[in-house]
């Protein structure tokens, strides 16, 4: 079974530039999550989609971050303009039926962003 796919794996940009990350979840997984993991910390939820609708985006810095999942499958997370503190690994995860029964999220390898 193919896992959650993310790209790019690594990205280096200068502050005030923009960047976009792409995620393709496991086939059939209705729920998709974006997490931000800063070095030395645990993953922090940014946004949760159920199909193409947003379930929770309470921790998404909406002045600079945006995310979409237009057809209920792939998703894109964008940062514009980037700040130094956005340097982190951006993890995409997916789960079956919202994951509420099992709590099992399947994670991608992550996209490592460095903002200079």
């Amino acid at each position: 079974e193919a896992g959650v796919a993310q790209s790019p794996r690594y990205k280096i940009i200068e502050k005030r530039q923009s960047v976009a990350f792409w995620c393709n979840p496991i086939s059939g997984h209705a729920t998709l999550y974006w997490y931000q993991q800063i070095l030395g910390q645990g993953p922090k939820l940014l946004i949760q989609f159920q199909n193409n609708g947003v379930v929770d985006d309470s921790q998404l810095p909406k002045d600079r971050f945006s995310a979409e999942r237009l057809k209920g499958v792939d998703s894109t997370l964008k940062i514009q303009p980037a700040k130094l503190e956005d340097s982190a690994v951006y993890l995409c995860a997916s789960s079956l039926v919202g994951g509420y029964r099992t709590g099992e999220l399947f994670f991608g390898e992550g996209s490592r962003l460095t903002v200079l």
Partner: protein
Amino acid sequence: AQRVTQPEKLLSVFKGAPVELKCNYSYSGSPELFWYVQYSRQRLQLLLRHISRESIKGFTADLNKGETSFHLKKPFAQEEDSAMYYCALKSGGGADGLTFGKGTHLIIQP
């Protein structure tokens, strides 16, 4: 607000010794807790969940609501247990994203 605390950033034990990774949580509702693990160069993955009351790779974890803890234990550590371990709490209702602790880096020495 819900919170997960893992007090140990690093834990080093010898092979064959018992292991206990601590996790405390703060949550006003009925908690659902999980342990996730990330081995070197691998993806973050589920290790075990409290509702299953299962033992995975020799690890167990018991939810103690009185002490608001969910410590991960293994009686005899093996070298392949070396990894980052994250305790996670699931929020209730329709939004079920996980709140993770900062993680504990477990090193098993030969």
